[in-house]
């Protein structure tokens, strides 16, 4: 059967199991949108307010569902608006297929209206990308795009389709099944045996895991391993939600703003077993100081991560789930009572230091506002309150900044894929679009923790939350400043608050109402409780604008390039 290129795109998407695409129309995808309209019973199109929001929504959808997210934009500005979203997905290994229209092949290279070289622009932030110049190659190129996006370590793939390729016709034969990923690579038996030997010899082992556990669906294997070898574990930001927060072996996120006990335990370990993590500078601190006293086993599906940031004593490439599964029978069942006594001490120490920091923060607020009941909320109070109302399956989404770190430290995450955050790229403005996509994927409520800085970047997507009839609770930690940068300025730049004081008078509740949502301002725990009750009792979009003091700090903090010896856990003045 001969059909148009635009129709081939839609048919191939459906063949690949896609039921939802995110996007924004324009001149060079008008044919594609026409076909989406004709096939609207078979595939949903979610119209966002901005292409960046569409890219983040496709990303949030992919992270929550574990499927490949699809985003469509027109040529030129439509395509360039996707770039931040594509880069965000690339840094966090999110499977995504981005489809862009382009000017007709005869017009390419002539600086035609709305023409950009989006393939050139996105080359360093995609796993691979294509421009399709012949309609006969269109279907197979799209299939390959899906294959690459979901194989091995996932990532975004862009397919650029000139207008004349969308209008040209050719034969199309649908395939019965979606493409399968490239075959997995499996860890070498010999290396796994060596790993088991190292683990069996270790007296103070520590597991450092990352997002690879979630991507590789290896949570159960990881839990069995930590249980069998009686091993504490900590994770990178991307690893959060892979294991339940209350697991007795789990110490929480490690690194720059991680839990004291996790970072300290890693530092005191004699063996660090790194699983599906990449030793980001945010997770390790000073590279040369890191790993002075311990050996490292590093297992990752992506060979290029091995020995990239930190050289490992034993580097193993292979599918993470398979590797841990095969490692399990090779390791001896162990108990490490001494090591766990020390871990308990570290936990106590962490508790004490956290308590001290909270007391200092409270005291600072009382003095600053000259009252015992300052009109601001402690960040942890906000997170604790919201978490009591939220369901276990609700997706916790964040933007980027202080609120993100507080949520990462504090929120009691229970299930994989319920924590959606921009880790690698740290994209402010990621949250609202991602919350729309995550909610659509999970069919559950999404809870967005954001700050007034991040929220201000892409709050136009409130329009999408309404048009899509989403269930979203938006918690704005509003402190009137760009808190994370301000914190650095406080600590390292003698309080010269350059460019971080917002001096705005945006009323986010009115903004929410203007878009058709509801909201309320809260300044104390009672008001917050009432607001949460309201937010979670109904459906729709509800915004809670929480007043937070501008001098709350994210603690602990390992200064950039620092180590556990330089950790800051309290700021007195």
């Amino acid at each position: 059967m001969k059909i148009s290129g635009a129709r081939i795109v839609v048919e191939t998407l459906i063949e690949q199991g896609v039921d939802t695409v995110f996007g924004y129309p324009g001149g060079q995808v008008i044919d594609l949108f026409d076909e989406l309209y004709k096939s609207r019973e078979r595939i949903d199109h979610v119209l966002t307010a901005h292409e960046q929001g569409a890219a983040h929504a496709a990303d949030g959808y992919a992270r929550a569902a574990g499927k490949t997210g699809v985003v469509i934009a027109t040529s030129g500005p439509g395509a360039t608006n996707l770039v931040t979203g594509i880069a965000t997905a690339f840094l966090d290994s999110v499977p995504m297929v981005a489809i862009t229209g382009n000017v007709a092949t005869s017009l390419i290279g002539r600086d035609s209206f709305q023409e950009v070289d989006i393939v050139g622009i996105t080359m360093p932030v995609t796993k691979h990308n294509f421009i399709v110049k012949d309609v006969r190659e269109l279907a197979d190129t799209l299939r390959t795009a899906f294959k690459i996006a979901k194989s091995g370590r996932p990532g975004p793939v862009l397919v650029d389709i000139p207008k004349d390729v969308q209008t040209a016709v050719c034969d199309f034969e649908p395939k019965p099944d979606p493409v399968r990923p490239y075959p997995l690579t499996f860890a070498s038996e010999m290396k796994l045996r060596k790993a088991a030997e190292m683990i069996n010899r270790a007296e103070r082992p520590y597991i450092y895991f990352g997002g690879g556990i979630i991507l590789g669906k290896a949570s159960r294997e990881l839990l069995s391993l930590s249980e069998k070898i009686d091993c504490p574990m900590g994770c990178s930001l991307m690893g959060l939600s892979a294991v339940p927060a209350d697991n007795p072996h789990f110490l929480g996120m490690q690194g720059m703003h991680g839990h004291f006990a996790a970072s300290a335990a890693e530092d005191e370990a004699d063996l660090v077993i790194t699983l599906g993590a990449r030793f980001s500078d945010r997770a390790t601190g000073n590279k040369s100081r890191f790993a002075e006293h311990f050996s490292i086993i590093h297992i990752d599906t992506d060979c290029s991560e091995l020995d990239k940031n930190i050289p490992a004593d034993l580097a193993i490439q292979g599918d993470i789930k398979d590797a841990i599964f095969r490692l399990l029978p090779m390791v001896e069942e162990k108990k490490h009572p001494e090591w766990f006594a020390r871990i308990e001490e570290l936990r106590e120490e962490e508790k004490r230091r956290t308590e001290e920091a909270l007391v200092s923060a409270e005291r600072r607020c009382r003095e600053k506002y000259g009252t015992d009941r300052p009109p601001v909320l402690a960040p942890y109070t906000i997170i604790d309150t919201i978490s009591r109302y939220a369901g276990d399956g609700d997706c916790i989404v964040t933007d980027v900044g202080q609120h993100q770190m507080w949520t990462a430290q504090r929120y009691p995450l229970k299930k994989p894929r319920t924590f959606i955050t921009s880790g690698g790229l740290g994209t402010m403005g990621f949250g609202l679009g991602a919350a729309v996509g995550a909610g659509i994927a999970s069919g559950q409520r999404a809870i967005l923790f954001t700050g007034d800085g991040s929220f201000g970047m892409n709050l136009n997507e409130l329009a999408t939350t309404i048009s899509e009839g989403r269930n979203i609770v938006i918690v704005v930690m509003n402190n009137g400043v760009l808190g994370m940068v301000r914190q650095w300025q406080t600590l390292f730049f003698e309080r010269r608050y350059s460019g971080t004081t917002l001096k705005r008078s945006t009323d986010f509740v009115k903004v929410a109402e203007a878009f058709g949502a509801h909201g309320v301002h809260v300044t104390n725990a009672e008001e917050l409780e009432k607001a949460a009750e309201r937010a979670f009792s109904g459906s729709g979009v509800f915004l809670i604008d929480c007043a937070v003091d501008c001098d709350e700090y994210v603690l602990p903090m390992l200064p950039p390039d620092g180590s556990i010896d330089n950790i800051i856990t309290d700021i007195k003045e």
Partner: protein
Amino acid sequence: MDNNSEHTYNNKYIIGVIVSNVSGVLSRVSGMFTRRGFNIDSLTVGETESAGFSRITVAFHGDEDIRDRILRQLEKLHDVREVEVLDQSETVVRELLLLKVRNSSATRQDIMAAVEIFRSKIIDYSATALVCELTGETSKIDAFIELMKSYGILEMCRTGIVAIERGENCLKTR
């Protein structure tokens, strides 16, 4: 190299890469080097015996760690089919130089003698300039250029190296 820009490395490596012969592949490969902060001495690309593939030869200075990181990043690119570090004792390496030097009665004899000794060829002759062609290993090309400097080099271009293994060993796509 990233964080090591002042550092000089003594080890020289040559990597042979077979890539799909598709548009943009050279940008993809060279872009990877830029993005990852790997400095390269030379990068050449050309057709191979099969129409579907091109061959890229990359030469760089570095240590084993950098070499391995480059290999792993190259292997990850979708269009890259085969990557191999060429063992230099088992590899023939060549580079082509075209060099235009001032022609004057005072220097002509010396230039001709050098051309003879280096087994170079004069491929263009005019009253005021000579164009020499020279193939050889990088060190030989460097030595020839050094010698010609005193006669007044007008312009020059060199291809960067190509390399192929001795004997039956081949860099083939699997």
